[in-house]
């Protein structure tokens, strides 16, 4: 491979904001085949091939090294693989897509304000009810990592791919780990974020794969492109 591959979100608000960012830096994204096409180009940077992919796939491909550069959420890099953050270089935060991955409990749990309270609740459920505390989330990797750091081992994850905030009311789980921008969905469901319950502050980032092959002229091309985008060079 001689050129660079840049993966950008294929649809929705993220796609629009990504286009705006590149255009603002003087490198407009073109999609010659129209919205149905999966390939595009960067105006003024002929060495770059643009691929349109869902944000989650971009994170996976960056970690595997099958795309060189991509725009995706920090949360997705952390979630896709435990070693994801080591496999990439966060070159620049893009100032949009801000959201936090948080731990939220029913507001009625007035005795639980911090992660260390959850450790007690988890062991109480285990000893009194003979069952694990259940956490509904789609952020399995992030949850496991942070709960391990907090010294909480007595829990089970219930995988939830949508409407996670409804899990406590539906009886599917006791608490949740979810992404939130304003917290209003959580509040509407009478859920409360723990005081030290922000596991990850996420936003859209320009991300470079460390696992891609960076031989020959490609590293120099990358350095030049990152400079043009006002992004930090990969060390």
């Amino acid at each position, binding site marked *: 491979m001689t050129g660079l591959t840049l993966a950008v979100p294929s649809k929705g608000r993220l796609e629009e904001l990504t286009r705006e960012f590149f255009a603002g830096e003087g490198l407009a994204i073109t999609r010659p085949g129209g919205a149905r096409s999966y390939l595009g180009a960067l105006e003024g940077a002929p060495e770059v091939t643009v691929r349109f992919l869902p944000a989650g796939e971009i994170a996976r491909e960056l970690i595997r090294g099958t795309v060189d550069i991509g725009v995706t959420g920090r949360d997705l890099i952390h979630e896709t693989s*435990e*070693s994801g953050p080591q496999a990439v270089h966060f070159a620049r935060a893009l100032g949009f897509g801000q959201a936090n991955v948080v731990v939220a409990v*029913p*507001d*009625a*749990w*007035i*005795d639980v304000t911090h992660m*260390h*309270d959850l*450790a*007690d*609740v988890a*062991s*109480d*459920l285990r000893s*009194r009810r003979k069952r*694990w505390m259940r956490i509904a989330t789609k952020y399995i*990797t992030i*949850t*496991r990592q942070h*709960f*391990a*750091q*907090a*010294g909480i*081992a*007595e*829990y*089970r*994850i219930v995988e939830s791919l949508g409407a996670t905030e409804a899990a*406590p*009311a539906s*009886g599917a789980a*006791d608490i949740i780990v979810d992404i939130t921008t304003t917290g209003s969905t959580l509040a509407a*469901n*009478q*859920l409360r974020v723990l005081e030290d319950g922000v596991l990850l502050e996420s936003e859209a980032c320009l991300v470079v794969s460390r696992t891609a092959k960076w031989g020959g002229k490609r590293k120099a091309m990358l350095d030049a492109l990152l400079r043009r985008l006002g992004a930090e060079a990969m060390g």
Partner: protein
Amino acid sequence: MTPATRRTALESVIAAQAAERVNPPLLLPADPYFDLAGEEFGRRLLLTSGNDGAEYCLRPDFTLPIVADYIRNGPGKPAAFSYLGPIFRQREDGPAEFDQAGLELLAQQNADAALDAVFAFARDALAAYGITRPRIRLGGVRLFEALLAQADMPDAWRPRIRHRFGHPEALSRLLARLTAAPDLPRVKQPSRKALVEDITGRMTAAGLSLTESRTPEEIAERYLEQQALDAAHVPADTLRLLKDYLAISGPALQALTRIEALAHVRKLDLSAPLATLRRHLVALGSEADVVFEADFSPRLDYYTGIVFEMSGRGDEILASGGQYDRLLERLGATSPIAASGCALWVDRLEAEAAR
């Protein structure tokens, strides 16, 4: 010596044990592992699911299927099992499939003799790979439990401290929190009844079941307990004792002598667990570098008496095990049953021998 002759030597060490050689299925239901060890261990399983949605994992260890089988066949009688075969775990340093060997001694009359037999087995297995002077790291779960039971503090704190033993970071965070606990003026607490009403109201409004998860009573009780705990300080003196104790680490005889001195000054009776540790030290002999670390314990709460790890010149742990009398109860036995054993990392043994 070649890898093949070393492997043969390991086979003979296993065959020499007075133990039944077993080989549990490779494909096992995943739930018991999650139930026993939680997500922290669960993240390392290689999972697959059946057509009916049931979750299976590739055998991640031998102890659980061996012990579960033993319980199914009617526990109580002394039994010994040995194994050697592949296990599967997600790991960063090496392939997900690797061999493990080990020994499980269940319901033995003499728990001390059983642990000595486990030590001897691990030493013999290491010797088969040319490691005749291993480094051995010992930890005392019973010793810590004895200290905790006698240390002066409100009772409610004991299980919370015990619960964090084996996780040095979480434990030191808790001790730091207790040290920094502010001496707040006591606010008058609402009555239990008023709290339960308030919580019930909130839960109903949120559409939460009052019975499925934590009940309003449980929440109110823990809330009041927390308020009481914040007021019920762990004496600064006790916190110092815990910190001093947990910091003890070094050549085993010296470390135990320091613990004895600490116990003497603090008027604690730790003589029984200390005597047991000393007996095992004698049995281990002088041909090993044995250290004792007061804060060392596996994170799993079914370990009970003495726990250990053995390594060679490198940092890799080659053998680990100890006593886990609570495991059989966790897996459904109706009364406590003595258990001890260890697992050997065969690929690491071979790597160490090849160094």
